């Protein structure tokens, strides 16, 4: 368990380290105005749409991955699987 925690911390440090140069480069804050849709969130929204924000299915563990925690979408799947079929939509 301790080993798992250490590895998670190491991963977080790697990502934080990778992002530091970008943060330093950014200088003044705020992304408004000079180029079309900049600052409205449109230019980055495709990242979220491809990720769990607009595409929750990709966060689910595979069927060959038992004993998982699964995260919020696995929670949804388990919750709505427990409800009666008549309460679920079926397309």
């Amino acid at each position: 368990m301790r080993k798992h925690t250490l590895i998670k911390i190491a991963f977080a440090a790697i990502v934080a380290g990778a992002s530091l140069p970008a943060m330093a480069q950014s200088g003044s804050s705020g992304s408004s105005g000079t180029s079309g849709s900049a600052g409205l969130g449109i230019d980055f929204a495709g990242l979220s749409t491809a990720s769990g924000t607009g595409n929750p299915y990709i966060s689910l563990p595979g069927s060959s991955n038992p004993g998982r925690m699964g995260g919020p979408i696995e929670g949804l799947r388990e919750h709505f699987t427990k409800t009666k079929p008549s309460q679920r939509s079926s397309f």
Partner: protein
Amino acid sequence: MKVKNKTVLVTGALMLASAPAWAQSGSEAASAAASELKGFAAPALQAPVAFGARWGTFGAGVYGQTCDCNTDDADGSLGVAFGLGDPDKYAALEVSAVAASLFGDKGASDGFGEAGSIGLKLHTNLPGFASFAVGVNGTGRWGSESYKNSNKSSVYAVASKMLPVGQFATILNIGIGDEIYNEPNKSGANVFGSAAFYFTQQISVIAEYTGRFTNAAVSVAPFRSFPLTVTLGATNLGERYGGDVEFAGSVGVGFAFN
């Protein structure tokens, strides 16, 4: 009389013998039903969430929005994402790339596919259907200087959790981030968050605050066994920064090979 007793005994034995099989088949049926569930409505419109791609999954999505930002009065971006690692065991790193200015090249300095950036998200799952992530959007930008200068990389940390609400459910999401998640021209970090109420796993209503804009949306996964998610909504409900309320939509599709 003896024959009747024998019949009762045999019937009872058969029932006892078949009980475990019934239980097993019920469990297998539930498991099969769960694995068939692939269509999930979205938990947010623009805000990052604390879960994402893992090893063996791949996602693609397109986002579009009306805006007073070019002569087309609309713009969009197209993204792809894949995952490395297992967020249940240690953590997964989601790598994504976005092509910006999809249909807003008139009046902006970049045309279709000429500008874009990379996103990285390290996410891990926690007990209680919760997850936590740190990430950066907009690193490794390419395109015109004006695009690169005006779309600064934005670092964030975010936590998400699913909570049952009777027969319904909700996914709550709260984070902190800089740049695009903060007021324009303001240093430091700001809070963002979203709440999605799920009527079924395939239909959700969303309210979110991105650190700049308040948005509302409805998301639908039209197919129960195919991972397609369509989200339609309105952005900038507060008409901030002199802008109008705008129409927004996204379509995401995922693939799993695990």
